[in-house]
């Protein structure tokens, strides 16, 4: 029973990581950049949920507000900070992304202060089945994530825009020759990634109600790790990597002897996978075109 409880907890943490990792991996695949401000979009979403919850007390409205605000924020960050650097050296883009991350964290601290806020989204209690007892929020997280991931996969595979995203990620020049507006596709990618980050923020606050300006920092790094483990640029890879990280985390936390080393274990997995398969679990080797 304990095994199943831990597994469900792991799947729930993992699907939250997967939500975040999808944002990293899609932006990397399509815009060819690492958006290190992605984790902080989660945090901004968290504060949006906090504000709406305080004003209206409805978690669903809070989630919707966070999704809308984060989507607009993602689009704005891309337009203001990254678009002017299209064609610049990757290092310049990377530094800008890190700067954007600190900017968002500092602004949140200036506006909301540094003391953590309590955001009780809702108390769903536990689901009991015989001797099995599972917190309901983990099931909500898991269920929502599965639905979102299925929708996203179908969107990418079967819509015109989704296929254009694959085309741009594979060969930007050839995509332009087909008449695909690469800037438009990049904007859509940032919008989707940021909306998923808002969901992740909601899931995280359901799990633990403490909200501060560094809410997204550690999960951001872990989800980025998950994206690399799964194969950066690969959408199924981000899902697999995220779930793997979450399950490992849950089981590691469950064993008292190794619990303090949980973060280290997760990053060791990254190192091992990079040594064995440098492209990640589902990553593909792409020949550089000349």
């Amino acid at each position, binding site marked *: 029973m304990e095994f199943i409880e831990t597994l469900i907890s792991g799947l729930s943490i993992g699907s939250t990581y997967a939500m975040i990792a999808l944002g990293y991996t899609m932006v990397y695949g399509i815009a060819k950049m690492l958006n290190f401000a992605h984790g902080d979009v989660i945090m901004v979403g968290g504060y949006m949920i906090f504000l709406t919850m305080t004003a209206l007390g409805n978690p669903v409205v809070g989630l919707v507000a966070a999704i809308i605000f984060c989507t607009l924020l993602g689009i704005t960050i891309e337009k203001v900070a990254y678009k002017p650097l299209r064609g610049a050296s990757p290092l310049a883009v990377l530094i800008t992304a890190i700067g954007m991350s600190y900017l968002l964290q500092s602004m949140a601290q200036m506006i909301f202060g540094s003391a953590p806020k309590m955001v009780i989204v809702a108390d769903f209690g536990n689901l009991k089945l015989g001797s099995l007892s599972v917190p309901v929020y983990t099931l909500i997280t898991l269920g929502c994530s599965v639905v979102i991931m299925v929708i996203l996969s179908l969107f990418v595979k079967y819509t*015109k825009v989704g*296929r*254009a995203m*694959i*085309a741009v990620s*594979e*060969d930007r*020049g*050839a*995509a*332009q*020759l*087909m*008449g*695909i*507006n*690469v800037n438009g596709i990049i904007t859509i990618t940032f919008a989707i990634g940021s909306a998923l980050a808002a969901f992740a923020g909601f899931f995280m606050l359901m799990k633990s109600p403490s909200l501060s300006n560094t809410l997204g920092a550690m999960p951001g790094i872990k989800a980025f790790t998950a994206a690399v483990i799964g194969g950066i640029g690969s959408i199924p890879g981000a899902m697999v990597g995220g779930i793997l990280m979450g399950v490992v985390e849950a089981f590691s936390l469950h064993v008292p002897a190794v619990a303090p080393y949980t973060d280290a274990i997760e990053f060791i997995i990254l190192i091992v996978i990079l040594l064995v398969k440098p492209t990640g679990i589902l990553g593909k080797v792409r020949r550089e*075109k000349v």
Partner: protein
Amino acid sequence: MALLEVKDLEVYYGVICALKGISFEVNEGEIVTLIGANGAGKTTTMQSVVGLIPSKAGSVTFEGKDITKTPCHKIVHLGMTQVPEGRRVFQELSVYENLLMGAYSVKNSSSFKEDLERIYTQFPRLAERKNQIAGTLSGGEQQMLAMGRALMSHPKLLMLDEPSMGLSPLLVDQVFDIIKSINKDGTTVLLVEQNAGKSLAISDRAYVLENGKIVLSGTGEELMASEDVKKAYLGG
């Protein structure tokens, strides 16, 4: 009025001048070829005309409209489609999905089925392999796919960059036959080739590019008869 008119086009890679002011034109219904050795600037010309590479000076006019500064993704909407060097089909997408991307700029989706049928009739090999992932096709099949993909957008001007590159002699003949038939169906063709003999044979007119400059021009027959061209490009 020429369909495509390129005037004094200059392109730089950093400080290196790749095109030193080239001018040429393509009239409606023609097959026009640019020939030249490796590094002469053929691909640079093709990419610069469609806006993939910015030009420093000069102008590109299509159907009398100045498109020098038009972004690449809008060019295809005007009726000018390019099959890039090295084919560059979308390796992870199926043959069908590649053709779908070719029709990306077509607003009227009702013609899609007809267009697809037309391409499958013209390239039966693509019909046989429509659900196959493009990365697993042979070089010749990928070239057919790249051409089919470009034709999905109903181009008035089809630009082909080294379509015969890396293909067996038999396939090269096939590719040139297809180019001729595409042209016969009313599509104007601008061709870039290293295979000077084959391309001059099907061309109405041609230009010889050397070190970023046009050094010679004339009808396909004239150039085939020219001593300079014979020496430099036709092996004798």
